[in-house]
């Protein structure tokens, strides 16, 4: 299995997949162009690239574990025994930029002090905003076979999407926003910030996985 693979079939069993592809491509391109104009190349790379790498590893491990699969896309990336389409990575990086900016605009108007609480508030709100959009997007994706939940994790589902999916959205966006904000406010040079943002992904990945296991265990224990 090579790192990059081209899909043999495209959109045969899925419905309106082109709508999803067009939407994410337009959103991703608009945000990248906007960020390049506003923040420059280095900052834009720092906002988008680490999230794409993190999403690749997190999504690939979920696919390899049989939680869900992505059928019939054009370009796939393979790591840890799971295949993830390029469009999903673009979607995740636009999610981080969108929700980080939106939550910043709310928190900066409500809480002016610049401290750890400020960073925690922005990260929490970013995760909550992410859930709000995913409540519309994930059931629609499952309904139209854009991605398929192969494993019923049991417990509560929302239009056949397991509750743990929404919890994971919050966890991923929370930790990625936290890391992005801490690095952004570290005061180091842009080059160093970029390198730290790539290497610190291991810390983010470990935190995401540990938190996921912790809450999954609690929810399974109480039968939720």
């Amino acid at each position, binding site marked *: 299995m090579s790192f990059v693979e081209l899909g043999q079939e495209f959109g045969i069993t899925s419905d309106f997949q082109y709508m999803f592809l067009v939407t994410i491509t337009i959103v991703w391109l608009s945000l990248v162009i906007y960020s390049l104009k506003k923040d420059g190349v280095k900052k834009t790379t720092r906002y988008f690239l680490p999230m794409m790498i993190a999403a690749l590893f997190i999504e690939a491990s979920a696919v390899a574990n049989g939680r869900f699969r992505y059928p019939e896309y054009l370009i796939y990336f393979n790591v840890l025994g799971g295949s993830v389409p390029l469009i999903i990575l673009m979607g995740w990086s636009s999610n981080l930029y969108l929700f980080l900016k939106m939550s910043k605009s709310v928190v900066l108007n409500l809480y002016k002090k610049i401290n750890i609480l400020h960073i925690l508030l922005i990260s929490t709100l970013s995760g909550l905003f992410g859930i709000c959009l995913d409540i519309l997007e994930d059931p629609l994706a499952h309904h139209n076979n854009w991605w398929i939940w192969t494993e019923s994790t049991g417990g509560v589902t929302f239009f056949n999407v397991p509750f743990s999916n929404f919890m994971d959205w919050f966890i991923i966006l929370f930790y990625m926003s936290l890391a992005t904000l801490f690095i952004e406010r570290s005061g180091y040079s842009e080059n160093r910030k970029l390198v730290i943002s790539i290497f610190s992904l291991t810390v983010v*990945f470990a935190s995401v996985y540990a938190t996921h296991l912790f809450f999954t265990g609690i929810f399974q224990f109480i039968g939720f």
Partner: protein
Amino acid sequence: MVIMENLPILILLGSTGIIITLYLCLTGKKIQKEEIEDTESDYTTIFGISFSIISLIYFFRLLMMFFTSIISRFYILAAIGSLIALLPLITIFLVRYKKMIRLKV
């Protein structure tokens, strides 16, 4: 579990990443002041109405998903999901509205 199968390589990668991150954080010189972003620069005024470009892009994504759920005949989701997905925009609007009122007073 794929994580368990790849545990040795993941531990190696994880440890390397943590050590390099710590090294970069501890040895780096702070050359810039803490950056506090000016979110007002995200706003643009068209025909006298102030729009946040980020919120507009989010609204476009929401609208496309709403439209897709309608043509997929998934009407319940279109109604419930879209209302929930509108909450971030409503929050931003209310916070900004409150700020404008405060500035006028």
